[in-house]
């Protein structure tokens, strides 16, 4: 029951991130998705090393979100090659 609720929320967040229009909106959905992945890993493994993997994957995904948001501020609009 718990894994099913978590899985439905994760797939919903992934679809909303795909069809979002704005870029900062997409970052917020990605963060909710990484919360869900970390919860799913801990619910599936159920041992202390599972908790360590969940914590590590969440912290590293937060670091990459930090880098993406910083470079979103650096380059507001990108120049595309036609």
């Amino acid at each position, binding site marked *: 029951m718990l*894994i*099913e609720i*978590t*899985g*439905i929320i*994760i*797939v919903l967040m*992934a*679809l909303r*991130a*795909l069809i979002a229009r704005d*870029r900062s909106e*997409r*970052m917020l959905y*990605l963060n909710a*998705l*990484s919360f869900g*992945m970390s919860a*799913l*890993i801990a619910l*599936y*493994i159920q041992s202390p*090393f*599972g908790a*360590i*993997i969940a914590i*590590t*994957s969440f912290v*590293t*995904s937060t*670091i*990459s*979100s930090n*880098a*993406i948001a910083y*470079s*979103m501020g*650096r*380059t507001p609009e*990108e*120049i*595309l*090659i036609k």
Partner: protein
Amino acid sequence: MAIDFINISTVSAAVSLIGAAGIILLPKPIDKVIMFGMLQGGFIGMIVAGKYLDVAMVAALFDPISTVILLIAIVKINDVRKEKSKAQEELDIA
């Protein structure tokens, strides 16, 4: 029942497929990098579903490094293109 179909393998595969579709469909480079972050999350889930926990640890540690390298390339090439277009407007040379 359809609810028996939801477990960690199918959810991780679905997240990876949605991330790959986003990488192909969205036009801007930073959008592509955001969807690449989603694909990394699904990939770690797929490894954990096979119970290869050490591989999952290494994948979780090396993911932000690849993201940062891609972002450095995007920011740098954007700066170069901006300089080039400014020079073309001012001096009218290639």
